[in-house]
């Protein structure tokens, strides 16, 4: 007989970050529509209201344009107490050039947030973190948060059981939302999940305290992306928040040398006030990030969500948590909780994220190549500057860059756009002109 949730069924979620909280919200909301009475426990040892590592999920802290819109439709409107800065544009930096690309509607649709209570050296808790906010929404719908770290699980007559030092609780469905920076995977192995662990690499994140006014003056409401020819660095961003800047470096095995090279580069230095000694902040971390999905994220009565399963390569991890959490909750309430149900209804969403990352790898490989070949890099800047200078011009390069750096469109779609003959022709023309000329690109942003 296929397993399904019924009135009184119990669901345990290990991990109370965005994936776990989104799952709890959607599960309870769908169950309410179906007049199904469920009991949901979220196991999360961290207190997301605390600053520093105790309440942090180590992340760049961006809610993408696509996710902001989806959440608004879901009725989750991120409040001003959570959103430290609304982002309405990005600035692209290379060694020689700097260019600003605004959204077509000039609207703040990207949210810069902190995941927890803020950096270690935060002076005053002005804003709440996203993880705590989402957890509160889940609690408001009836989920119970248990402040405990799960270190033991087993099976109890065919049902998963969570064992704490002083208690044990059996569930009809167990959900893994542990991310990749904990020992959660060992729990799934104990339950016999027939899957390979996801592949990870190390990122680097640091928080710099400049104060709101200085940040506003030098960084504005823009995400700052850096296309620098630094080996192993795929993506570098400076994200303005309230009183802090988040510096986020993604690539393969980010180490001290690479971090120093980044901070020492003229493109980075010129963004900061002239008297600012650019160096890493008091609060910094090197979290693992998922770069290749776990091979099988489910079995009977167990499903993995978010980073411990599959996430979007480098960008919009919170969006991937939302998509996987909702797909799993939909499956559990409307279909069932057997491996067959997850295979039929959850697996397609999971695979679409994983398959899209193949295009992401391809795009980042091309970007590496462009960064190393200066005329092509200047061709990118020239083409973008031309599009931004003429309001009526087709924004082919601008949209590709925007979607790539903000995570607003699937990598497959971005890749397809770059194959358009009009895109390729224009890019080749601008690169040829860049090769024949020197000097700064017209349209460079003057401030900063």
């Amino acid at each position: 007989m296929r397993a399904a949730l019924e009135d009184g069924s119990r669901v345990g979620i290990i991990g109370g970050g965005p994936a776990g909280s989104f799952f709890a919200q959607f599960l309870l909301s769908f169950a309410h529509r179906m007049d199904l009475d469920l009991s949901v426990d979220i196991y999360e040892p961290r207190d997301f209201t605390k600053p520093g590592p105790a309440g942090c999920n180590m992340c760049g802290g961006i809610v993408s344009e696509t996710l902001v819109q989806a959440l608004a439709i879901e009725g989750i409107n991120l409040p001003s107490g959570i959103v430290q800065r609304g982002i309405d544009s990005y600035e692209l930096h290379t060694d020689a050039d700097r260019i600003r690309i605004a959204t077509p509607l000039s609207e703040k649709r990207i949210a810069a947030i902190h995941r927890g209570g803020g950096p270690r050296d935060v002076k005053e808790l002005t804003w709440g973190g996203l993880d705590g906010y989402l957890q509160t929404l889940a609690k408001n719908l009836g989920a119970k948060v248990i402040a405990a770290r799960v270190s033991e699980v087993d099976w109890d007559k065919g049902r998963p059981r969570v064992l704490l030092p002083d208690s044990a609780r059996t569930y009809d469905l167990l959900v893994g939302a542990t991310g990749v920076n904990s020992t959660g995977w060992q729990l799934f192995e104990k339950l016999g999940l027939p899957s390979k662990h996801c592949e990870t690499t190390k990122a680097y994140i640091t928080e710099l305290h400049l104060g709101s006014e200085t940040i506003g003056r030098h960084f504005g409401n823009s995400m700052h992306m850096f296309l620098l020819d630094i080996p192993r660095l795929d993506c570098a961003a400076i994200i303005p928040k309230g009183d802090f800047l988040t510096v986020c470096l993604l690539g393969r095995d980010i180490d001290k040398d690479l971090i120093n090279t980044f901070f020492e580069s003229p493109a980075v230095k010129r963004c900061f006030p002239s008297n600012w000694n650019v160096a890493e902040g008091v609060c910094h971390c090197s979290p693992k990030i998922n770069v290749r999905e776990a091979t099988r994220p489910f079995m009977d009565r167990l499903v993995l969500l978010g980073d411990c399963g599959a996430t979007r390569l480098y960008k919009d991890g919170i969006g991937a948590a939302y998509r996987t959490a909702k797909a799993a909750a939909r499956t559990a309430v409307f279909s069932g909780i057997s491996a067959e149900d997850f295979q039929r209804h959850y697996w397609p969403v999971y695979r679409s994220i994983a398959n899209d990352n193949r295009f992401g790898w391809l795009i980042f490989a091309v970007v590496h190549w462009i960064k190393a070949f200066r005329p092509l890099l200047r061709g990118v800047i020239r083409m973008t500057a031309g599009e931004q200078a003429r309001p009526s011009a087709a924004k082919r390069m601008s949209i590709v860059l925007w979607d790539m750096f903000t995570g607003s469109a699937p990598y497959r779609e971005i890749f397809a756009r770059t194959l358009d003959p009009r895109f390729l022709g224009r890019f080749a023309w601008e690169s040829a002109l860049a090769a024949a000329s020197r000097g700064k690109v017209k349209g460079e942003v003057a401030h900063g």
Partner: protein
Amino acid sequence: MDDGVLGREYADSAVICHQGEPGDRMYVIQAGRATVLREEGGVEVVVGELKTGDVFGEMAIFDRQPRSATVRAKGAARVLTLDKRAFLRQVHEDPSLAYRVLEGMSLRIRRLDAELSGIRRCPQQEAVLAAQARG
């Protein structure tokens, strides 16, 4: 309104969307209120009011007709724009996303039904009610 918020700010009475224009986006009110106005013969008639969290402009996305009403900010308001294409792409992957929009439309139809029955009741029933009141 400070920097740490999403959407676009509209001053009091500023038009958020116009009756008759093509509907290539929908909206969610992030903060404040807005008035829904229908223009008939050059006169604007108030047909509804929207508050924080309300979604509007979705009808034109579903029925591909021009906007049926004008929406103006009532006091300062902050409104998030939702792209038609992004919305439809997400609904295609996740049809349950449309459920909340349907909920809103359903509530609106109920309210309109109630208002319509109130209008139709007027000539006959009001006379009866008035007679009853007279004793």
